[in-house]
């Protein structure tokens, strides 16, 4: 059965969901097993419509839950072909068991995660709770801040995940609604160029190679379990970053669009910096520019590769910065924020005396406004001048009632 190619304009006006669905179509995935949930539903719907219109040749399996979606993806990936799906929030939480299973089985799968809060209370809007829930699951996690990036990072994800030295599943995150439902100009690749970049799927230990039967998903106890987990961690720590860098470089050659493991903005001579993820990066960049006009040497660091965590790259990026804010968009529920903790580790290991403060913001889709960031940069400048953190170590931004702060 044949399928049709699609003519795209050089620049299309797409939201993040449609951009991801288009990238999935262009990657010529063999099996998509999926289940809808707000705000990622339009990815699944978009892909279903491509199929209905004859633009997809692969199989599309509409399963009965997200757990089954990832289970089907695991079976399909082990059988030997390109596999992807999409989810958010509660669906992601339902998948968690299978996230560990897929990464532990070393199966390349691409999962688009449109970030959304986790209930209770039920909330459909964007925050990073689901993204954080995945952080120990053994997946690679890439973060897009815009529809363009959601599009590009999908191609990159297939290349990294399916590499035979890597063979680890990969998530592409984007912010619910702020990215997924906001239409912007997206520079496209033609179908041929996009597929040429992703490349043909090269099977390995494929169950469907009937002359070479394989056993997937074995039992290991105290005698072998640790070695398997250690090997996986080792590959995440040593093989993934160089591969991502290589694919970023190839992608830049192809498209002119440059991605970095850590996305520094105005960092060269910065005194103070905000470290954050998702759409907040773009807001922070705008405010940093305005702060510079007021004489504050402000910079922004966006995290592009969330797992494996860019520990050494971060050490490099934070060199010489006097005051740093770690912005976590997920409730740490009884601890400092995740980014605060990771950055504490980075700074301590470098014997840095930078003043690091943590902020929790934007839960359940609450806006992070420019005014919030102006206040934040002013606090950072005061910390930089004093050579220490003058505020509590953990503060909440934008929550009603008396100001919440801890530690």
């Amino acid at each position, binding site marked *: *059965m044949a399928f049709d190619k699609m003519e795209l304009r050089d620049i299309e006006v797409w939201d993040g969901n449609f951009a991801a669905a288009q990238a999935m179509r262009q990657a010529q995935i*063999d*099996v998509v*097993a999926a289940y809808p949930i707000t705000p990622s539903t339009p990815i699944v719907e978009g892909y279903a419509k491509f199929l209905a219109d004859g633009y997809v*040749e*692969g*199989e599309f*399996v*509409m*399963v*009965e*839950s997200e*757990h*089954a979606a990832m*289970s*089907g*993806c*695991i*079976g*399909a*990936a*082990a*059988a*030997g*072909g390109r*596999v992807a799906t999409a989810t958010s929030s509660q669906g992601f939480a339902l998948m968690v*068991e*299978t996230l560990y*299973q897929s990464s532990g*089985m070393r199966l390349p799968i691409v999962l688009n995660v449109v970030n959304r809060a986790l209930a209770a209370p039920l909330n459909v809007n964007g925050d990073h709770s689901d993204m954080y829930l995945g952080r120990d699951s053994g997946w690679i996690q890439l973060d897009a801040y815009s529809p363009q990036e959601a599009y590009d990072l999908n191609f990159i994800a297939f290349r990294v995940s399916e590499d035979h030295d890597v063979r680890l599943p990969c998530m592409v995150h984007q912010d619910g609604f702020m990215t997924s439902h906001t239409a912007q100009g997206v520079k496209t690749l033609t179908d041929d160029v996009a597929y040429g970049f992703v490349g043909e799927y090269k099977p390995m230990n*494929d*169950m*469907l*190679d*009937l*002359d070479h*039967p*394989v*056993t*997937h*998903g*074995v*039992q*290991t*106890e105290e005698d*072998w379990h640790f070695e*398997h987990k250690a090997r996986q961690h080792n590959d995440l720590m040593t093989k993934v970053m160089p591969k991502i860098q290589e694919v970023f470089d190839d992608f830049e050659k192809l498209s002119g669009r440059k991605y970095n493991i850590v996305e520094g903005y105005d960092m060269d001579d910065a005194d103070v910096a905000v470290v954050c993820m998702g759409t907040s990066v773009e807001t922070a960049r705008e405010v940093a520019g305005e702060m510079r006009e007021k004489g504050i040497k402000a910079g922004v660091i966006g995290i592009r590769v969330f797992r494996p965590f860019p520990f050494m790259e971060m050490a490099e990026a934070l060199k010489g910065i006097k005051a740093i804010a770690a912005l976590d968009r997920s409730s740490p529920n009884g601890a400092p924020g995740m980014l605060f903790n990771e950055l504490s580790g980075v700074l301590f290991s470098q014997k840095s005396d930078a003043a690091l403060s943590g902020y929790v913001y934007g839960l359940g889709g609450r806006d992070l406004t420019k005014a919030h960031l102006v206040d934040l940069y002013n606090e950072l400048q005061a910390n930089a001048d004093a050579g220490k953190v003058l505020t509590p170590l953990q503060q909440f931004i934008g929550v009603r009632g008396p100001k919440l702060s801890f530690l």
Partner: protein
Amino acid sequence: MSEIKKIKNLKEFSTSADRFEGANLLCPGCAHSIIVREVLNATNDDLILSAATGCLEVCTAVYPYTSWDASWIHIGFENGSTAVAGAEAMYNALKKKGRLKQPDREPKFVSFAGDGASYDIGFQWISGCFERGHNMMHVVLDNEVYANTGGQRSSSTPIGSSATTSPAGRVSYGEKKNKKDMLSIMAAHGAPYVAQVAPNKWKNMVKAIQQGFAVEGPVFINAMSACTTEWKFAPEDTIDISDMATDSLVFPLYEIIDGKKLNITYRPKNVIPVEEYLAAQGRFKHLFKDQFKYLIKEWQERIDSNWDYLQRREEAGV
């Protein structure tokens, strides 16, 4: 369509090329291995297999060993059916795209799972696979208990059986609920073929498996699997106990075609009393105390009435 394998006698059948090795960790006398061999040996076609977490899985693929000489996958307790469904979807995709490595061979897709993995935790996944109509066979190794984790009840555990989470005691006769009727539920999905089989009736079983392989679409097989450890009988008695189960009609053997037509596939020449079957197993021992004896009578009545129901359905052709 591949040819149906011809099987003449038990000797030939039991010595046909083995894709499931005797080198495994299942208990001596475990019926799981007999069932698996009967399913695998029923065909010469290539096989893509899965197992759900449970005795079969933990005893046959312990790194760095495997008992499987066919492609095999285990993911978790509840999702073995969907693992095979995903593999079947990939087969269809690669076939369409012309990327199969052996395009002239048509593998069969089979998932094995315990009663816990099928009746309870994996029920939704199986239902999804059947509703979507994957071309696969799901085989339940029905030992009526969570054997792998030490004998907890499942919704297949029959009334009056003592399981660790529904133990018989001073005031309790053990499991209070009757076994769930999975065959009817799966037939109601419109599956082209569902059957209850037992490994002691091997000819009957092979016929059912071959019929299952011959149809297009999802096939459900409920295979009785006598468990020496949890049913509490001696390992050498597996086949005797299984014979008692089929001949007392506690496990009637029948099939339902297209969800609409029931055929009884085995009629015992001499039907034995249910009491004999119960008396042979430790899990029912307490039923023979005066206090609980009334349950044995109820058992017999229930089995009689079920057999009557099956016969009436068969006669009516529904």
